[in-house]
């Protein structure tokens, strides 16, 4: 049995560490057998949990029903509207997520110029800089979807020399960790490009000159980030032309 497939049981009972989980989810995106097995094993595990029923206090009901007033339900995932071709990868093949057709992020992308408030980590670019990248004639878009339903799209404009990332429904980074962005140089070096804001739906311009970048990566790093990646990326956006 393939080493990765063997993680299905541990995944179903949440017994993987953060890195293993990210890798397995990347694998899940590409392995129908594992998706089916995980679904069945999660169903099985949930039956174990059902046996532990215990009434919560009545006050909790009111707290929950009050709480949802402030939360907008996520939109459903919609059918793909365009495809992205697979490209050469410089980074580990096992850790990349599904490179698939765009969906919600594409809609966000189109609407983004109109109403999103871009988050520029450098603070000096201003919203207009992100807008210029998103609207650039030479903008290249690469999207990654995660099995959790989250997606992220990198938009690169070589003429603007900058890259922007848009995320949709990203889970927060694990406790004590951050998502760090990287620009890959043509020689294969990883240059830190900033930390993702702690929001599930973000628009962020990457730090640094992206005009020569061959890829953008996201890794999970300790709080504060790292000067070099300390783990394989949970997502890799190949920009090689």
């Amino acid at each position, binding site marked *: 049995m393939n080493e990765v497939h063997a993680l*299905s049981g*541990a995944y179903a009972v949440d*017994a993987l*560490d953060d890195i293993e989980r990210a890798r397995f989810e990347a694998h899940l995106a590409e392995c129908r057998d594992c998706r089916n097995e995980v679904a069945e094993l999660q169903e099985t595990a949930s039956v174990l*949990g*059902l*046996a532990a029923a215990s*009434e919560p206090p009545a006050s909790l009901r009111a*707290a929950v029903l009050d709480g949802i007033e402030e939360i907008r339900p996520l939109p459903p995932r919609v059918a793909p509207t365009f495809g992205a071709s697979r490209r050469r990868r410089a980074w580990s093949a096992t850790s990349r997520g599904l490179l698939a057709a765009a969906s919600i992020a594409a809609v966000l992308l189109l609407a983004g110029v109109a109403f999103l408030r871009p988050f520029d980590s450098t603070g000096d670019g201003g919203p207009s800089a992100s807008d210029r990248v998103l609207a650039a004639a030479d903008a290249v878009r690469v999207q990654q979807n995660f099995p959790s339903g989250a997606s992220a799209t990198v938009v690169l404009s070589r003429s603007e020399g900058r890259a922007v990332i848009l995320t949709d429904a990203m889970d927060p980074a694990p406790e004590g960790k951050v998502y760090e962005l990287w620009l890959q140089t043509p020689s294969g070096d990883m240059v830190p490009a900033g930390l993702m804001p702690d929001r599930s739906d973000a628009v962020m311009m990457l730090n640094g000159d992206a005009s020569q970048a061959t890829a953008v990566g996201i890794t999970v790093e300790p709080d504060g980030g790292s000067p070099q990646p300390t783990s394989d990326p949970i997502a890799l956006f190949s920009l090689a032309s």
Partner: protein
Amino acid sequence: MNPNGEVAGGAPEQGVPPAAVGQSADELAELLNRSARGDREAFASLYDATSARIFGLMVRVVRDRSQAEEVTQEVFMEIWRSASRFDPERGSALAWMMTIGHRKAVDRVRSAEASARRDTSFTYQNHTITHDETVETAMATLEARRVRVAMEQLTDVQREAIELAYFGGYSHSEVAALLDLPVGTAKTRIRDGLIRLRDAIGVGR
């Protein structure tokens, strides 16, 4: 700190409305669908039909009852937020909700453990099911019997590995260390055990 984390006096201040109990899988799925469209009444019914199960699991994993309440609230917020992402093709509504709940419970104990593991003794096998007098929890004790019978079909190591992972919130590497298994084999025990359990319980599509 009560090592069992189970409070016997978890009195049901509020009975589960009979109409909400025994709801079929399809009805729960329909409530989730309506919740995704922002229907608060449907979500309230969903809460009434499932809160004892979610809360029971939170108590079992997190152990501290007030923390379990916090996590239960987070879980229902997440269910409300992501109801549109439920896919009936991939499993039951209840399993989808329990999966969200379990992930959050495990996240909670793992982040808490960074400072201090909640206790060092293993009492996972001493858990008892609280017998609250609601129909929902009575149903749960039936589930419990069914699960107990199914669990008896596992090897000791499979059963312990699954219990430590699912109820203890331990990673497979930690489970391996706890059970003196070679590194990397606990995940196989967990998988083999779950597959056997799946077949015994009759989960499958």
